[in-house]
């Protein structure tokens, strides 16, 4: 060891420690506490503000809509019924949208003249009309023509609307599969159909799964709009309760909370799927 000073040792005075105050303020616990405090203040101000407006908060009436325990035993309330209906509606519409979306995506990618034109026309038509107007169209115009009831009209409308979004996901997923796969498939003599079925589609699923699960959440949110044509589901039940009892704020917040719980559960599922199928770039 030479007598020369170690050139890698830090020179000069060490950096001053940040002041005690900024250490506290920058810490995680303080931030979280401050956040909780701000949220608490917002809730408190809204509550008393509404009361000052003359609104009579009646939270005690809410639990009966979730469940009731009567002489007949335990019974689920209207909100739970509405939630089940929402899930049923969303699931059916999603299945329809997936099938239709796949067909449209394949049509779009086919390269054929009329097939491609029809699919593009369909996509552009549905993409540029609001969901509410589409629902009215399905229910008031196509409903009488084909004889749908309101539930069928809602499922069809939601299915068609989301099929457009899903077809784009399919198309992106299919196009993301490396070109080399196509070439390999045709070079061993597969037809286009066989290539799709055995090589391309299975691989494209990996790309499609994350956005698809996002579409499930989107579908649950879109399903709320069918309340305008009185289809039994969560939002409709909420509006009916409000028109009977005038508890607007409590019901709307409760309904919003139920939707949040559902979508959060779904999102947890989404992140689990994403982790499993993450595409390592």
């Amino acid at each position, binding site marked *: 060891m030479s007598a020369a000073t170690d050139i890698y040792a830090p020179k000069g005075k060490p950096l001053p420690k940040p002041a005690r105050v900024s250490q506290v303020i920058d810490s995680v616990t303080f931030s979280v506490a401050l956040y909780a405090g701000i949220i608490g203040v917002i809730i408190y101000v809204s509550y008393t503000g509404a009361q000052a407006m003359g609104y009579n908060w009646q939270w005690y009436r809410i639990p009966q809509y979730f469940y009731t325990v009567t002489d007949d035993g335990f019974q689920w309330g209207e909100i739970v019924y509405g939630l089940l209906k929402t899930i049923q509606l969303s699931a059916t519409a999603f299945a329809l949208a997936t099938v239709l979306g796949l067909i449209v995506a394949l049509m779009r990618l086919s390269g054929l*003249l009329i097939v491609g034109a029809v699919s593009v026309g369909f996509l552009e038509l549905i993409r*540029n009309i609001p*969901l509410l107007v589409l629902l009215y169209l399905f229910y008031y115009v196509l409903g009488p023509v084909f004889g749908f009831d309101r539930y069928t009209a809602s499922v069809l409308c939601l299915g068609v609307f989301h099929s457009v979004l899903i077809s784009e996901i399919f198309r992106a997923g299919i196009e993301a599969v490396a070109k080399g796969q196509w070439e390999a498939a045709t070079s061993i003599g597969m037809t286009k159909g066989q290539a799709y079925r055995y090589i391309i589609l299975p691989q494209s699923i990996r790309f499609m799964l994350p956005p698809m699960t996002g579409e499930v959440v989107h579908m649950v949110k879109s*399903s709320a709009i069918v309340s305008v044509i009185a289809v039994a589901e969560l939002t409709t039940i909420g509006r009916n309760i409000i028109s009977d009892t005038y508890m607007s704020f409590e019901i709307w917040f409760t309904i919003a909370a139920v939707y949040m719980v559902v979508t959060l559960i779904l999102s947890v599922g989404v992140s689990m799927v994403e982790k499993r199928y993450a595409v390592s770039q």
Partner: protein
Amino acid sequence: MLDKLKKLHWLDYLVLAVVVGFFGYIWWQIEGVLNYNWRWGQIPNYIVRYHTGREEWFANLLLQGLVATIRISIYASILAVILGTILGIARCSANLTIRMLARTYLEFLRNIPPVVVIFIFFFFLSQQLINALNIESWARTIARSDDKAVWEFFFGDMRRFPSLISGVIVLALFESAFVGEIVRAGIQSVDKGQREGARSIGMNRFQEMRYIVLPQAIKRVLPPLANQFITLIKDSAIISLISVQELTFKTVELVASTRLLFEAWITTAAFYFVLCFGLSMLFRRLENRGQRRR
């Protein structure tokens, strides 16, 4: 033309047959089974009409609704971009509290159906704001004054101004969440080196954001922002549920007054289609031009 016909595959013919069959069935049902009297002749009257009393041409229900939708969309977009940019910056902030608050707002808006959000914002926020800022009497004074033509061009009938503003505020608050995400993605896509460069010449965080990061971020996310504008126009149909006098609400009124069920809804859908499709074509062309120049 003939050589195009030769390229047709059997699937083409199949699809063509299905489409023709579909529309044919609809036509047959409407004419034959439902006995519906098409009254298309009455629709142009509801778009533009020569007023019997005032003896002048004026825009009737549907056109009024269309213009209201356009106005609301433009104002809500401007407000949404402002709020969304603030939200996007807050999401990238160094302060954990601000990040958490922004994240909460975002998750609240992203996980709840638009219908529910609109109702909550309407009852809970915009009413309060309008009362607090006394917008109503201000609008009424303008409606009574003589030089209201300019105001009416921008905002329509000034007496209905509070309702217009409610719609704009509610729509802007809702869309700001999505704009916020777009802006955040834009900000995070700006190369870290840019920020380090800014810091090294002595800019503070605010200056760095304003002069270096934001301009680049916004330029990058212009295409998604343009798409969000079109989405906003479509979402504006939902505010008809809070009785804002835009195109969908006017169509509902038209149907309630005249039972022109089919014609009214098909016309309104056509209006929205022309508006949104036209804009998306326009944006596509602008984007191509922009890219070619680069």
